[in-house]
């Protein structure tokens, strides 16, 4: 680490205590802190590990078995459901990116008449709980025959995803210097050209961030898919939730199914942890 951080300073005991004693008490404190972190980490993971291990044992406590994991593929249409999750998530992420990135740029760099008020209304939508608008939404889409369709579901996800994405993109583009636009204009490029060939490549980190946030939001959603997708063609999240609690299936089959459903978001998390942290601390919303 190049610059001194808060902990460096906090720990830099000098003078009176004497270097030797300071170091040993520091090492002792470090040891205590490390052990505390270990304990918290184990306590956090314990329920997950305990339940996953149980899914490999007969009745959860008996000898090792793969019966529940085999049953997942026989008793639940997991491949179809994973495919639905992938389809809905892919379309929603693409849709949100295609409309939010240009809009964020427009609000940050291309003021037009009414831009301020429209931007403010868009941002305000971040505060609206899904449940407050979902009922008229449902009846509106039902009127035009889009309830029970992938298109309708994706539209709802896009509508809900835009406010946060536009907000994050606008703040990112705001942080880029206006001089980039001006030099483009001097070179004779139009605004559209500047956006596409100068600004867009620079915005890739922010685009990845909102893509990851939207991916997790849609893949992990229950309510929207439950209401707007056809019953026989559900996402994996809805498929599992519908089976939970009705005692048709052994609970360990459901556990195995949920582990399966968590693999794609876990991969995304491992690949993009840094982007995710950046996005969540910029404008948090889930």
């Amino acid at each position, binding site marked *: 680490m190049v610059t*001194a951080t808060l902990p460096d300073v906090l720990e830099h005991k000098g003078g009176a205590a004497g270097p030797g004693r300071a170091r040993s008490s520091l090492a002792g404190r470090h040891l205590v802190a490390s052990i505390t972190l270990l304990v918290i980490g184990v306590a956090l993971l314990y329920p997950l590990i305990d*339940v996953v291990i149980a899914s490999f044992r007969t009745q959860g406590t008996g000898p090792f078995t793969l019966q529940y994991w085999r049953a997942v593929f026989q008793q639940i249409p997991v491949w179809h459901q994973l495919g639905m999750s992938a389809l809905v998530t892919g379309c929603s992420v693409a849709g949100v990116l295609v409309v939010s990135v*240009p*809009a964020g740029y*427009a609000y940050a760099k291309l003021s037009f008449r009414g831009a301020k008020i429209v931007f403010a*209304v868009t941002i305000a939508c971040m505060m609206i709980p899904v449940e407050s608008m979902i009922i008229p939404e449902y009846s509106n889409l039902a009127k035009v025959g889009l309830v029970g369709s992938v298109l309708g579901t994706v539209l*709802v996800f896009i509508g809900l995803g835009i406010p946060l994405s536009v907000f994050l993109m606008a703040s990112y583009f705001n942080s880029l210097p206006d001089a980039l636009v001006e030099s483009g204009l001097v070179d004779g490029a139009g605004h559209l050209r500047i956006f596409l060939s100068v600004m867009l490549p620079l915005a890739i980190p922010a685009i990845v961030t909102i893509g990851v946030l939207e991916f997790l939001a849609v893949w992990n959603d229950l309510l929207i898919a439950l209401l707007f997708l056809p019953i026989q063609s559900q996402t994996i999240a809805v498929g599992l939730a519908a089976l939970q609690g009705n005692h048709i299936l052994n609970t360990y089959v459901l556990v195995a199914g949920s582990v399966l459903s968590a693999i794609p978001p876990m991969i995304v998390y491992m690949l993009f942890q840094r982007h995710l942290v950046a996005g969540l601390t910029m404008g948090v919303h889930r």
Partner: protein
Amino acid sequence: MGRVARARTLRSRESARAEDLDRGRRRTGLLLALPAAVLVGGLVVFPIAEATYYSFTSWNGETAHFVGLSSYSQLLFHTTAIRQIFQNNLSVVLSIPAGLFFALTAAFLTSLRVPGWRPFRFVVFLPVALSWVVIGIVFSNFLTPGQGIDSLLSGIGLHSLALDWLGSTHTALPALLATFNWALFGINTVIFMTGLASIPPEVVEAARVDGAGFFKILRHIVMPLLGRFVRLAFLVTMISGFSGMFGLIYVMTAGGPGFSTTTLEFQIYQSAFTLGNFGQAAALGIFLLLIMLAVTFVINMIGRRKAADLW
């Protein structure tokens, strides 16, 4: 005379070009912003306006009769179920400080950069990638009598605590809220880590030079500077608890036993899609929105006043 005229045409040519550019900028801006604006307008703003209207009607999804404030007055004064639901939402809020306390502790230890902090951060943040469905299924199993938590408690001699956590009206809500705070632990820890990293070391160094000890610095410098991050974490958790917990409730308890784990958010779904009372659901939705706006406003006011004291 000639020179003046030439200057004038030059200037007008320049201003014509500037005007062109200006028009181009406005037109491109409008073009790029339009799709997002239309989608948000049609899919979020318009439904909210409709919900506001329908909240004054008795609406079954097809026909709506104007009934004024009766949906709201029913909410506020009548059924015991509603009172229970409001209490549950209050419990959500009251559970947050405990969760934040643990997250703050973890963030502080992590920011000391002791050995193992990187894997710890990875583990702690992991639930962010898990859905409520996955978390709900895992914890339902963990809390089932005779499994996970039972064997853990029996193992350390606490047989008396081996309860049917999700099956009893007394323990279902605490168990649900513990799971909820477990899931948000990671996000809050990361928010606090960001906060701790934002404190300028010079300030702490100066206090040390003035003779302040470890705990004094913690109490008088670190905590006040963390204030706005505590507020952010509180808001994030509250918003999630009020309007983002549907999946967890649906999977773990379906709002029961009785109404013991039904929050306002969950009741909106129940009113509309199991009872078919869309008008009441719309009123509940508007009510939820108002509560959230009010709480956000109050928390920001508290923050501002504290900051004013500080200066």
